[in-house]
């Protein structure tokens, strides 16, 4: 039974018990610190657990501790002001009161206080405006008063426990206490550790302490000395430095999740060019040349290179016809005169739909394609908008693709992202059966718009030589990332605070 207790003793507990044994079964923790190489925290924590096992008793007393203030220190070193006057009086016996400051170098306020104490200590008397030493004062020249004795002691010891003080110390303490700001008084807890009978029995059985080590070293492992060493236990709750791992950017992580969804759904990934001709960005998507979205205020037109090349003539001519009269597309067209120069203007692509158009020009259905990329809109930087952001775009082209298939892909896509989705009619110049997707936010109990879709119009497909229906959809990625990261300010994503990035968990809910 007792042996079990011994086995479970920690190193510190053993050390405290051993120390108490050598100190006559009773000691203060401070004494134990002095005899053992452990700190006070460890002693106290060991004492606590020893007490709970009934091996020792811990008594706590609260005492007053006094120490010197800065002024107190000065007086202890240079003497109390009344002492300084007394030393001047020693030779002169009588000094006019008005000369006291120049004689002693004390400031007038100190002189006033000093005179009070001279009289109280009966070292001098006042006689017609003069200060005159007394017999008591002459005796005092060579002895120290009780307050001065205490000052000396404090100067030497830094602080003093006011526990069962001697008469002299108590007297000095009472005197100093009357003066303002010479001593600081604090309450301090004092512990006493005492071995119980059970503890003594344990010691009789015997407690062994092995040598202890802090760090496991290469040397110890090589020589085998680790076998004889006890490794000091650590406080597992102590402070530790932070580790900042390298991480993928949270927006990139969202992009990656989206890519993986498309790849799992069998989509081929494509990429396009950041700078595009208005032709690919607008014209081949059947956006009329006077369409509001094409205006300077919404689109970044480029000054250098201002105009770029167009693809092969046949395609350009077919697109022109689709705009003007509908051509062979079965459409009425927009009924205006299409200008090739306008189509040559270069823009920063305003959507990734131009990537889909280029892909369709080069690939034959059946196909599934997606692309992720940056797009540009002429917006100022605010918490809500940026002049550039990421978009993902997907198309599915096959002979028997239907609008319900488009809804099916969308539902699956948003479901994989963790959202419930619903659809409402919308409008895009390049699609029919156009719709907007709204996703449900359970915590806010609202639906928000997150992405558009539709079937590419014949005016888009015919010039590209595509003969099957094409379902297309796209969405802005930043908005989705903001929802997942629970941030309100889109700028966080591009002008990131390193603290935020460092502390953001890699695994998000």
């Amino acid at each position: 039974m007792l042996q079990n207790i011994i086995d479970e003793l920690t190193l510190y507990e053993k050390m405290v018990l051993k120390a108490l044994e050598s100190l006559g079964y009773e000691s203060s923790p401070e004494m134990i610190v002095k005899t053992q190489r452990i700190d006070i925290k460890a002693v106290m924590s060991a004492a606590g657990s020893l007490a709970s096992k009934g091996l020792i008793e811990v008594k706590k007393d609260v005492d007053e501790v006094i120490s010197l203030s800065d002024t107190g220190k000065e007086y202890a070193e240079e003497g109390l002001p009344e002492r300084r006057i007394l030393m001047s009086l020693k030779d002169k016996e009588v000094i006019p009161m008005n000369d006291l400051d120049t004689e002693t170098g004390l400031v007038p306020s100190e002189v006033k206080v000093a005179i009070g104490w001279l009289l109280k200590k009966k070292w001098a008397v006042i006689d017609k405006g003069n200060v005159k030493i007394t017999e008591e004062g002459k005796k005092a020249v060579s002895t120290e008063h009780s307050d001065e004795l205490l000052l000396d002691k404090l100067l030497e010891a830094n602080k003093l426990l006011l526990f069962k003080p001697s008469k002299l110390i108590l007297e000095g303490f009472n005197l100093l206490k009357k003066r303002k700001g010479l001593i600081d008084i604090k309450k301090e807890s004092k512990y006493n550790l005492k071995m119980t009978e059970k503890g003594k029995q344990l010691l009789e059985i015997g407690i062994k302490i092995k040598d202890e080590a802090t760090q496991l070293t290469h040397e110890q492992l090589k020589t085998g000395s680790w076998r004889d060493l006890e490794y000091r236990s650590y406080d597992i709750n102590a402070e530790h430095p932070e580790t900042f791992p390298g991480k993928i950017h949270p927006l990139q992580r969202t992009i990656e999740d989206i890519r993986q969804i498309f790849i799992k759904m069998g989509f081929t990934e494509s990429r396009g060019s950041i700078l595009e001709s208005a032709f690919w960005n607008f014209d081949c998507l059947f956006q009329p040349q006077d369409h509001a979205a094409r205006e300077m205020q919404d689109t970044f037109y480029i000054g250098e290179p201002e105009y770029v090349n167009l693809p092969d003539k046949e395609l350009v001519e077919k697109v022109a016809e689709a705009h003007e009269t509908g051509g062979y597309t079965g459409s009425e067209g927009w009924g205006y005169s299409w200008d090739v120069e306008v189509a040559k203007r270069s823009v920063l692509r305003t959507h990734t739909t131009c990537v889909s158009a280029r892909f369709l020009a080069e690939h034959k259905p059946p196909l599934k394609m997606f692309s992720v990329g940056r797009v540009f809109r002429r917006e100022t930087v605010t918490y809500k908008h940026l002049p550039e952001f990421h978009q993902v775009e997907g198309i599915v082209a096959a002979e028997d693709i239907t609008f319900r298939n488009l809804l099916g892909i969308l539902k699956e896509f948003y479901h994989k992202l963790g959202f419930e989705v619903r659809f409402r009619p919308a409008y895009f110049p390049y699609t029919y059966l156009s719709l907007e997707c709204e996703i449900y936010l359970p915590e806010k109990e609202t639906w928000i718009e997150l992405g558009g879709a539709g079937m590419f119009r014949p005016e888009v497909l015919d010039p590209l030589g595509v003969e099957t229906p094409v379902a297309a959809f796209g969405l802005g990625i930043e908005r989705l990332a903001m929802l997942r990261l629970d941030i309100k300010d889109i700028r966080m994503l591009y002008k990131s605070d390193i603290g935020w990035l460092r502390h953001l968990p890699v695994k998000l809910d």
Partner: protein
Amino acid sequence: MPVITFEYEDLYKLLGIQIPQEELIKLLPMIGSDIDDYDGDEIKVEFFPNRPDYLSVEGVARTLKGFLNIEKGLPEYEVEESNISVEVDSELKDIRPFIALGIIENVNLSGNKLKQVMEFQEDLHWVMGRDRKKVAIGIHNLDVIKPPFFYKAADPDGDSFIALETDEEMSLREIIHKHPKGKKYAHLIDKFDKYPLITDSNREVLSMPPIINGELTKLTEETKNVLVDVTGNDEKAVNNTLNIIMTSFAEAGGKLKSLKVIYSNRETQKPDLMPKIKEVSVKNAEKLIGIDLTPFDIANYLANVRIGTQIQTEDIVQAIIPAYRVDILHEVDVIENIAVGYCFNKLEPELPQISTIASENKSEILDNILREIMVGMGFLETMSLMLTNEKQHYDNMKLEEDERVIVAQPISVDRTMLRKNLLQGLMEFFEDNKHEELPQKIFEVGDVVFLDDSCETCTRDVKKIAGAVTHSSASFTEIKSIVDALFINLGLKMELEPLNHPSFIKGRCARVKSINNKKSDDLIVEGYFGEVNPGVITRFHLEYPVIAFEVQFN
């Protein structure tokens, strides 16, 4: 997108019934709108620009009547010929050639109706008119003017009139210089020697399109009969706009009359509210929407969205499209309307049964490899905008300006060009985080854009990666070791030579290139690394050494 605000009461009056608010806010999105706000007595709804007929509460009510079974199918409007004409000056041919006028009798503009008409007109100016450039509208009090009317090219200094919201007569030239609307829209006509003007038979001015109407014909709450003028450069848009306005007034109970427009070589009677006919194939509709349909189903669903029908054969249905619908260009648009009339919510989503094999883009695969290597070395990924400015990109990096993609009309001085390097973005990141704990190790993978005449877009997107480290003892050896690790893990060997790069300390910068192995698909990687120049460090207000690399992939 245009937003219209209307009161529930106005809508209920037009519908003839009250419907619960919840039902309304569920129904409105199904006709193609986004509800902005629906508190209080008003509702704010955003419509798409393809449906300018929804810019008045009358237009919205018209469609809702179909969905609510109050009134279905093609709305019919009676137009009486008025015997009034407008004569068009042939000199307007190159200025603003087209005009269409219509009369509505028995209008009620009392209460908030007058304000609504003004807002409707302004919204149409945007959506149909492209801010009055393509189409401009004037609505006049018919009872103060005397037909016939004249649309003429007028001498800017010869004619004068009292413009709306003024009390003094000004010449046309004075109006475009002094009147607030004149100044705003002067750019549309001030390049011409003559300005468009509409007058009556007493030479009283109705309007100076597309600038301003005359004070004379100003509408008031008491106005009973109105004349609408629409002018513009695109005859189809002019006619469509008039149709939208006329039919909207008709929904509110107005009586419509047409006028004769006399051009030098032809005459037309406007408005012409003849519906447009489009044939739709039942098979096509079934195939594209993905549901089973009969011609009767199609007729029924189209009736919901106020399109009339005539069944031709088992497979062909004629859609009879009202004159205010300007969005239907193709059979597929009719098919879209069938689905809208069916209601998107009722369509069951269904995954397609096509089998395709996925493939990732090679460039994205490489990006992820780069990320894995950098993150493994303890680097934090950052992302920055591709749009930057010359000061940040060149000046702060101590680089000379060179050829680059330049934005024609930047929205701010911060975003004037596309980046060619990534390093300045990393420096900016350090600057933003200068008070955060060191060391900081960051990287970015991304595209930059170079000019390249040999490409279709005259530019080439190039993949780059840059990394940077800052702490008190960052050194050349540290960054060299990092770049070496990057190359080794890309399966490459690096080749170094000294480089004088203005962004780096002289003698502490290296040009790095991958040594070409025999394999043809080996990456060609080149760039530079070193200790960043203190002149650059201090321009970003940093106080600790920075080491960095940047390489590109060809």
